[in-house]
């Protein structure tokens, strides 16, 4: 059985894996904003090249990346066909017709752009979670949100809850399987077609699960107390997140990309070559 608390983390030795998770998180957010600024195939092309470069330097098999797109496949097909069928400028004449539908040039272009945007939007966070464990993501969020604790928001407590939840997911899922097996052995039927019966069959699973979760929580609290836990106050960390040269490098590469894309969009200096390539 796979350890679910690792999410879809793909273990490998790479620069991308070793980047500061805080930086990765911020860059991913910036990347997603960037995706919305792009309005040309050329811009999307640049971003695709960038994504491929990151994938290869992270030593992630491209197939893994494609797999993450499966989840949005239906959404993708749906939006593409809707745009294709219904999008057009008022002055446009159809370039093809079929049955009751008419197809327009702008419909093709826009559905293509939309597909690129959706795919790239999904790929960004996927790359993040493929190269960063949920645990380091939690640490990164805690570290980034630390300023909020000055206005009395219990950032540390939330992060602690999060990491304990991550830690307990595999334990509880194992326990759930055991309870299901035990109830089956007593003749419980989980395969009924009737949705009410199926929902009812969940009760003898959920109740023991709840009871044992509370017992676990109680014991865990004792164990944490016993190991001197007293919240964020006076607590240090073994693994200090420190900015390294590779982080600066990643930051500069991404900064250049960001700047380039925005230049393509706004062309502040009215350069002719920019106008030329953004025509397509």
């Amino acid at each position, binding site marked *: 059985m796979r*350890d679910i*608390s*690792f999410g879809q983390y793909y273990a490998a030795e790479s620069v991308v894996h070793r980047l500061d998770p805080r930086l990765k998180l911020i860059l991913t957010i910036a990347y997603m904003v960037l995706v919305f600024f792009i309005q040309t195939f050329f811009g999307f092309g640049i971003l695709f090249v960038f994504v491929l470069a990151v994938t290869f330097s992270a030593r992630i098999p491209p197939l893994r990346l494609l797999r993450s797109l499966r989840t949005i496949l239906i959404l993708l097909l749906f939006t593409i066909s809707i745009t294709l069928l219904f999008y057009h400028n008022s002055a446009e004449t159809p370039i093809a017709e079929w049955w009751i539908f008419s197809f327009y040039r702008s419909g093709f272009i826009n559905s293509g752009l939309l597909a690129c945007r959706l795919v790239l939007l999904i790929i960004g966070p996927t790359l993040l979670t493929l190269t960063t*464990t*949920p*645990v380091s993501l939690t640490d990164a969020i805690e570290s980034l949100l630390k300023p909020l604790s000055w206005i009395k928001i219990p950032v540390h407590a939330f992060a602690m809850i999060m*990491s*304990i939840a*991550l*830690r307990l997911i*595999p*334990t509880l899922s194992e326990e759930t399987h055991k309870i299901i097996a035990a109830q089956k052995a007593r003749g419980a039927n989980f395969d009924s077609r009737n949705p009410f019966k199926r929902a009812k069959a969940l009760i003898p699973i959920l109740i023991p699960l709840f009871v044992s979760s509370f*017992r*676990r929580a109680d*014991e*865990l609290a*004792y*164990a*944490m*107390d*016993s*190991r*001197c*836990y*007293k919240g964020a106050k*006076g*607590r*240090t*960390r*073994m*693994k*200090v997140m420190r900015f390294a040269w590779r982080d600066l490098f990643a930051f500069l590469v991404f900064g250049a990309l960001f700047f380039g894309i925005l230049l393509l969009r706004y062309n502040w200096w009215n350069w002719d070559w920019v106008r030329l390539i953004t025509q397509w």
Partner: protein
Amino acid sequence: MGIITFNNVSYTYNAGTEDAVSAVKGVSFEINEGEFVALAGHNGSGKSTLAKLANGLLLPRKGRVTVDGIDTFDKKRIFDVRRTAGVVFQNPDNQMVASIIEDDVAFGPENIGLAPREIRARVDWALDAVGMRAYAKATPFRLSGGQKQRVAIAGVLALKPRVMILDESTAMLDPIGREEVMTVIKKLNRDENVTIVLITHFMEEAAQADRIIVLNDGKIALSGGREIFSRADELAAIGLDVPLPSRIARRLQENGLELPDGIVTQDDLINALEVCAKKCP
């Protein structure tokens, strides 16, 4: 004065309500530094309550508990108490807070605010001491019970406690896991001079301690060295079994074989029988 002292300690759960359970009743004893003490007793005799009283997780309703001279009622020094006396609990799954083994072991030292480098050193040392260094970066999920429990021990050990209390920490393990854990704690006791309080209802395990305290219904029923195993009737009366080698030795004695008292482990029995066989061919 002992490193842990109980002075006429009583504890009642849900005191003052109708669900009140008197779990520990006027218990006094003392544990000296470097000792290996076993605390035995059947289910519900108050062992876990005693363990929690010993590092301030519970506070006595009556009497006083001190750890290295510090009263567990002393709120300001409660973390000194917990650093001095660490508890390893029964279920390793319910003691781990982190998804990566070294992060879990680091939890204690992080809580007491040590410098990152010192934490690293302690984590490596603790994992070495329990023989789990090779798994530092792994997840606890796939480990065997014995390995998980050794990680839990490392988690407490990283605080460098002078006393380690193990509350039935072997009860959920298979024989191999039990052996692993017993080997680790005996090594800690011998090499690092960690005082061990081993709570158990396996008499074979209790027999490996220097001193045994037997609890019954919240009170100390018997205490002493391994000679208490010769008091088989008293042990049986409070629901504990005498180790099999002791029973065999007793039956052989009753049938006229000249065996020494205090045979508890298989090795004792084998040695005694060998000596006996040489004496009377």
